[in-house]
């Protein structure tokens, strides 16, 4: 802040000098606050994708839930982007429950996504990968979710349903399908619209403990008659979709030991 006691010694004195900080004072203040926040340096994110896409909006919703302050409700921000006014809040009751118990929440952007247009007899699938190696050590994942946005598919008949399956990639092979482990499956209506969340807590803990096993997730879809279709046909939003509907992953953490601030 600007009104920091600057008369040299450590004692705080009453007579604050209300003036702007000089450059070196500002740099000292920045170092001090970064050390209190437990950050080695100030992050320099690459925000070419814009500051408010799906993950930051979701996290801002969690932040507002925690701080309970009167902020602009996130839905208002979202409706600015959407023609439809879906009423789904981003953070569901379940996330709020995780939130109360967590010391830290982290969202991860999807690093890779292949829409393998394979020959008809092989199935379409979409791959997602998240880099969990950046988690500060001493953090334990208490819950993790994979979030996908589904738009209403108006082309097909309204009461068509799709079967969506989420797999963990266990082993990859160059010449054939990867070995997969089914994590979750869900029947969706073509007319459904909103966020889908899938619990990947166990998978995320495996990826943290053994990064070599982090081969990502696969999502596949088929119609009620068993025909494999692409996620785009089923209305799932991928990298080419709207920024605020991009798929992402979110993990809730409990700190196993308190961050002790190094004396400066």
């Amino acid at each position, binding site marked *: *802040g*600007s*009104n*920091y006691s600057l008369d040299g010694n450590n004692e*705080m004195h*009453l007579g604050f000098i209300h003036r702007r*900080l000089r450059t070196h004072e*500002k740099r000292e*203040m*920045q170092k001090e*606050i970064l050390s*209190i*926040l*437990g950050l080695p340096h*100030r*992050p*320099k*994110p*690459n*925000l070419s*994708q814009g*500051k408010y896409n799906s*993950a*930051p909006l979701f*996290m*801002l919703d*969690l*932040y507002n839930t*925690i*701080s309970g302050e009167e*902020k602009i409700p996130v839905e208002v921000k979202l409706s600015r982007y959407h023609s439809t006014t879906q009423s789904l809040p981003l953070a569901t009751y379940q996330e709020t429950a995780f939130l109360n118990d*967590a*010391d*830290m*929440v*982290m*969202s*991860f*952007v999807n690093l890779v996504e292949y829409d393998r247009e394979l020959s008809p007899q092989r199935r379409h699938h979409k791959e997602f990968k998240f*880099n969990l190696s*950046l988690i500060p050590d001493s953090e334990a994942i208490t819950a993790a979710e994979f979030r996908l946005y589904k738009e209403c598919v108006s082309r097909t008949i309204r009461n068509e349903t799709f079967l969506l399956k989420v797999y963990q990639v266990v082993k990859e092979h160059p010449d054939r399908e990867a070995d997969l482990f089914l994590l979750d499956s869900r029947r969706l209506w073509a007319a459904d619209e909103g966020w889908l969340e899938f619990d990947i807590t166990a998978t995320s803990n495996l990826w943290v403990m053994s990064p070599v096993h982090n081969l990502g997730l696969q999502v596949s879809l088929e119609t009620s008659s068993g025909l494999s279709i692409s996620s785009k046909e089923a209305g799932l939003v991928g990298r080419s979709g709207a920024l605020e509907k991009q798929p992402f992953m979110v993990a809730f953490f409990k700190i196993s030991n308190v961050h002790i601030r190094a004396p400066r």
Partner: protein
Amino acid sequence: STGGKRRQQNRNRSTQPQDGSRSSAPADYNSSDQKTPCRRHELFVSFRELGWQDWIIAPEGYAANYCEGECSFPLNAHMNATNHAIVQTLVHLMNPENVPKPCCAPTKLHAISVLYFDDNSNVILKKYQNMVVLACGCH
């Protein structure tokens, strides 16, 4: 003290000029004249002023308060001035050089949450316990 003496004291007191400084009775443990009452000062740490709004999403900043001054026990409190004076006197008699000066310290602390991007554009929401002083008082 006996009643007579007390009457004497009362007579003395009423004749004394009303000056600001207090007599240096043994219970009076402070020589400093001005008594800064126990107070909480607010410093606002503005992330915007630090030029960090490109990576911190929320909040704009936070109130980093601190406490200063001396405690005074409200007379109707559990530890009232008389008990306090007796305790101080006893401590003084036992160990003259370190008469405890009641500190004024945070007695109620509050967490803040900070929402920010990391170097890889992932978003982190972190709770920092005991960052804001909500109340000051005596320990």
